[in-house]
């Protein structure tokens, strides 16, 4: 008897070839593996930290040593900090012209399409290679509006130094969990963005994080402040070539959305499958502010990723749209958190996850509505699609509603790809593989259309979908 399972025509594995090209490691400077006070002091010295930052790092290290590795999520026992190099400086200073970036690094970003996208559709670009930002530039007209977009190191000592000090790791604290503490101790690189009141940045800014060295950690810090009534779309991309040793990503993203402001934060994460992606993201949203998250998680060996929004001001809002694609050997634990801390706040979490070929995908959400958040509304919807019987999908929603005056909705669907739908498409001449790809593409479509154009294209390439848009 024939069956769909027997014919081996799965959805294609994500085509990673372009991401997997490795550069020969030719670092300008590398610290020893592992984590000691000496290493942290050394990183701080090399980076010319202000004194407060040196103290901050050492305090974070102390906290790190007192905290345990979390055990409530996917297994982290394959991650041994003694084997991780926390700081690798590429052989270049930060440049404002791609021509000044060393060829082998520039070629990497060229292959990823970053300089090209910068010309066509971005207001500014930051590019980090291992531990340091190698390129940062913002269009003149955007800078003329007073928008600041720079690497974190420059921000620490520049015009906005006080603002940085006031906000740095105040939303995400080293004591939150072990990897935030680690981040506090060894962070390097990342971007600082400040959008002045009322300024509407029409086209997005983008930072791209590339980790090239094997056994390395990347700990970039992103701090964005969108002032009153302003608007920004920020895009974050990440990738790395595949190695046989564990790499670690423990970045921090802190977002401040001031009164009446709106921030859209899009991420396409495509780390290689030896990466532990233990990233933390948090936004604080003031009165009438809007926070929009768009998140695509495709890569990494193991992910813990739950961007959090604190709806601090009355009538503030957040929307989270996410997609996770877990393939062979991947355990991706993703979701979102929200705290409603003021009246009439609204949140909407909508996620899709796809697991195939033994991949594990877990959706975790946490929604809290505090007693004072009267008249608030929240809705969560998560849909999972398992492409075969070896793959797993779980949903773990947590709700803590402390007022009766709130509107709470939750919807979860876990399903398999429908044989009847495959048959229907095949009866119109599509091969089984194309039929499956089309169904998976259709499943992901509501998320894909939220992604920035070039990333929607990238996502299609990633999932290798020969589907909508590719025709005609």
């Amino acid at each position, binding site marked *: 008897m*024939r069956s769909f399972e027997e014919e081996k025509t799965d959805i294609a594995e994500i085509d990673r070839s372009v991401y997997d090209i490795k550069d020969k490691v030719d670092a300008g400077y590398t610290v020893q593996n592992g984590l000691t006070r000496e290493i942290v002091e050394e990183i701080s010295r090399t980076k010319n930290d202000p004194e407060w930052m040196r103290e901050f790092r050492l305090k974070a290290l102390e906290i790190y040593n007192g905290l345990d590795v979390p055990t409530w999520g996917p297994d982290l026992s394959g991650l041994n900090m003694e084997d991780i190099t926390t700081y690798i400086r590429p052989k270049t200073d930060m440049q404002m012209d791609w021509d000044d970036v060393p060829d082998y690094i520039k070629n990497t970003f060229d292959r990823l399409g970053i300089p090209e996208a910068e010309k066509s559709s971005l207001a500014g670009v930051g590019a980090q290679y291992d531990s340091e930002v190698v390129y940062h530039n913002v269009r003149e007209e955007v800078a003329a509006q007073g928008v600041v977009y720079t690497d974190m190191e420059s921000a620490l000592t520049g015009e906005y130094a006080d603002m940085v000090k006031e906000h740095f790791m105040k939303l995400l604290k080293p004591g939150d969990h072990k990897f935030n503490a680690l981040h506090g101790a060894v962070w390097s690189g990342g971007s600082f963005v400040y959008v002045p009141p009322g300024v509407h940045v029409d086209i997005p800014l983008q930072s791209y994080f590339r980790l090239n060295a094997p056994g390395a950690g990347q700990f970039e810090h992103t701090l964005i402040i969108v002032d009153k009534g302003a608007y920004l779309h920020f895009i974050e991309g990440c990738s790395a070539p595949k190695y046989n040793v564990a790499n670690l990503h423990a970045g921090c993203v802190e977002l401040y959305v001031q009164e009446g402001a709106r921030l859209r934060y899009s991420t396409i994460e495509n780390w290689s499958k030896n990466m532990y992606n233990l990233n933390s993201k948090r936004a604080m949203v003031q009165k009438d502010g809007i926070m929009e998250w768009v998140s695509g998680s495709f890569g990494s060996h193991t992910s813990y990723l739950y961007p959090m929004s604190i709806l601090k001001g009355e009538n503030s809002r957040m929307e989270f749209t996410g997609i996770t694609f877990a393939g062979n050997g991947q355990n991706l634990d993703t979701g979102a958190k929200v705290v409603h801390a003021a009246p009439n706040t609204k949140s909407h979490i909508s996620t899709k996850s796809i697991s195939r070929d033994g991949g594990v995908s877990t959706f975790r959400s946490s929604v809290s509505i505090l007693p004072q958040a009267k008249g608030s509304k929240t809705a969560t919807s998560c849909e999972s699609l398992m492409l075969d019987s070896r793959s797993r999908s779980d949903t773990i929603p947590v709700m803590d509603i402390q007022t009766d005056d709130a509107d709470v909705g939750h919807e979860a669907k876990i399903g398999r790809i429908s044989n*009847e739908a495959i048959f*229907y498409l095949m*009866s*119109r001449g599509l*091969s089984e593989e*194309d039929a499956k790809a089309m169904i998976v593409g259709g*499943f992901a479509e509501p998320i894909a259309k939220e992604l920035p154009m070039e990333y929607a294209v990238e996502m299609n390439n990633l999932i290798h979908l020969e589907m*909508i848009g590719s025709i005609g």
Partner: protein
Amino acid sequence: MKSGLLNISDLKVSVEGNNILKGLNLTINKGETHVILGPNGAGKSTLAYSVLGHPDYQVDGGKIVFEGEDITDESTDKRAKKGIFLSFQNPEEINGITMVNFLKTAKKAVSDKPLPVLKFHKEMNQKMDALSINPDYAERYINVGFSGGEKKKAEILQMLMLNPKLAILDETDSGLDVDAVKIVSLGVKEYKNEENALLIITHNARILDELDVDYVHILENGKIVRTAGRELVDFISKNGFTALENQE
């Protein structure tokens, strides 16, 4: 002498261990319109699914030959490419794929050549208009939120666009109001010519009003028990299957 299009001989099919078709024979030639009537559970839809090669329908014996080629073990998409089409009794709803993209993909798949996009759109718009399908439906996801009648019209639209050699209509008229049956029936008439063939599974004579029916088969308990001309449709719609049995 008409050339043979579909030859089914001694076909035995089971679903989940239940024998449904028990030695069915049927020959359809180019240019012909065949009608299959039969009580519920006789195996009518099983016949349709078997001709398309649904993997849950296991062929235990006999063969299906299309244009002289044994397709009994062919995959569903290969059969579609050879020119067999099924208008589903309950078309699937599939999210995230617009009808127009689906139609383009299907058209490319069955014709195996690049699609003349402008011509395609013009043709699609014209056929949608003829079938009284709201133009907005082209941008809607496959059958999602369509009424029963709209789904059936969308099936006929696909048939007209893909222009198969053999179209099997499985209860295409069920659940439709009088006007919708008329529209669908005209669509089917537009499709039909001397080079293709129709196999209509129905229990409603109205869809046949506009069509020249060559053969009417009675399918009962997995076999074709009687074959006659159009007059059999009229007899059964007037008197029912029981009357037919009593007549014998």
